[in-house]
């Protein structure tokens, strides 16, 4: 949880909150949000902003996680934050995708949990093996 949310908020932080948003403009379709949404509630402000700005109303929270008004504003963001926008998108996408793993883990349990016990049991056996070999030789 700390890792996933840490990656999410770090990505949003370095991009000024512009790494994750939904845009109805077909010239700026944000397919990255498909990977970002599985992070859960932290992605909801983008959904709220999309609903609020759908009718042309101004965005809430000072434009946090809101789509740009036009491509010019998007260009200004890229000019201001440089590579941080792309890095923020990568961080937030990875956070969303990792949360799918975490959800699956919560649903089905660790994939190789049996190996933990198997490894613990295997180590003492390896230590005992020379003794077993010796006893085998005596018999």
């Amino acid at each position: 949880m700390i890792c996933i949310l840490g990656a999410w908020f770090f990505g949003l932080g370095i991009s000024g909150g512009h790494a994750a948003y939904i845009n109805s403009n077909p010239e700026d379709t944000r397919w990255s949000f498909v990977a970002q949404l599985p992070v859960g509630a932290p992605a909801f402000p983008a959904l709220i902003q999309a609903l609020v700005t759908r009718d042309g109303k101004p965005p809430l929270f000072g434009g946090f996680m809101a789509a740009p008004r036009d491509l010019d504003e998007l260009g200004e963001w890229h000019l201001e934050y440089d590579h941080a926008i792309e890095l923020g998108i990568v961080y937030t996408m990875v956070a969303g995708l990792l949360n799918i793993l975490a959800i699956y883990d919560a649903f089905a349990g660790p994939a190789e949990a049996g190996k933990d016990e198997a490894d613990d049991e295997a180590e003492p056996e390896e230590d005992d093996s020379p003794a077993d070999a010796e006893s085998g030789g005596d018999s």
Partner: protein
Amino acid sequence: MIESLLLAGLWDTRLWYAVPLIAVISLVYGATKYEAPARIARSAGETALWILVFMAIVYAVIWVFSWGL
């Protein structure tokens, strides 16, 4: 010249953004595979190494193909 360019690339600050990302991916992936903290840490280390090796291979391939450009 080439060595200095490589070093400049390695020490470029943007590359350091990969470090927390690799750590996060490795830890979460390890935690989904195992329960014991020690096993998770070992798995995370192995995964991080795999990612770094993979990144180095991709870097080498790109570097070879960009030779002479």
